[in-house]
């Protein structure tokens, strides 16, 4: 029951709060910026990965004229997984280059726009005590 409540609360939080505000809030409450930065990038490139997988699937579907054996389909899926991995590695290398090109040297610098106010601490304490 506790797990269900926790998962529901997290899902609700993600569905009702814009992601950039969520990330900034996490920074404000002290989550290390390297974790937030990694989370932001994972979220960003998840969509790109989904597009890539969908396009490969459609491209294969569009060229499939008749039903193929289970073995052939499995072979094809294996090939697609391998290709997706190679493409992902290629993109990650280029993203790293783009970051270096813009002056990144391993130290994550972000704009901190949110500040915890007294009312935020009171709201946090109230929520914790109620739970």
């Amino acid at each position, binding site marked *: 029951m506790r797990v269900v409540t926790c998962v529901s609360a997290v899902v609700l939080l993600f569905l009702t709060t814009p*992601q*950039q505000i969520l*990330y900034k809030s996490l920074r404000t409450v002290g989550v290390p910026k390297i974790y937030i930065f990694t989370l*932001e*990038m994972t*979220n*960003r*490139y998840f*969509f*790109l990965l989904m597009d890539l997988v969908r396009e490969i699937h459609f491209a294969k579907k569009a060229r499939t004229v008749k039903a193929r054996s289970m073995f052939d389909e499995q072979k094809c899926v294996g090939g697609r997984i391998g290709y997706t991995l190679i493409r992902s590695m290629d*993109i990650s290398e*280029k*993203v790293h*280059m*783009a*970051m*270096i*090109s*813009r*002056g*990144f*040297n*391993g130290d994550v*610098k*972000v*704009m*901190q*726009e949110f500040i915890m106010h007294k009312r935020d601490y009171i709201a946090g304490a109230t929520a914790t005590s109620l739970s």
Partner: protein
Amino acid sequence: MIFDLMNVSYSYVGGINALKDISFKVSPGEQISIIGSNGSGKSTLLTILDGLIYPTVGEFYALDNKITEDVFDTIKDNAFRSYFRTRVRLVFQNSDVQLFSPTVFEEIAFGPLQLNLTPEEVKTRVLEVMEMIGITKLKDRSPHTLSGGEKKNVCIATVLANDPDVLLLDEPTAEPGPENSAMADKAITGVRDSGKNYNYCHS
């Protein structure tokens, strides 16, 4: 001299030769176009000019300094590397590799933040560049929701936010569709007419 390439060759792992014996110089204020068919090494050349990969044969000088892997690719801070990264900027062919932040505003702010500017200065600079390129309305959008042309404009804005002297543009108007292409073209024309004397190298 901005760039000086002397007999530069580059081979990828597996022995694929991308460049062979390239020599040329780029002087301050000069604008050059690199024309070639697919797979002729234009992107590889621009990546070398941006100091991201290094010639396998030959010598490459940028801003009168020799660019080598052991000097340029160290973890330690390097004064010339920091200077080079503020002066030379590359717009990648694939916009998606260049847009890794959750919003357009944060994407454009990424470069200026690396220069240790104050948040107010970063904000002013980002808003100015957005105004110049005409993408202010995209400020809070997530990069994956943008069209091809809009992504390219944001990429151009990300490099301009650092106020560079040298712009390397890898097929900036190659986005599919005439509207996307025209959008990127308009942004580049706006930059050219902005009054600053940029060095351009584009393929």
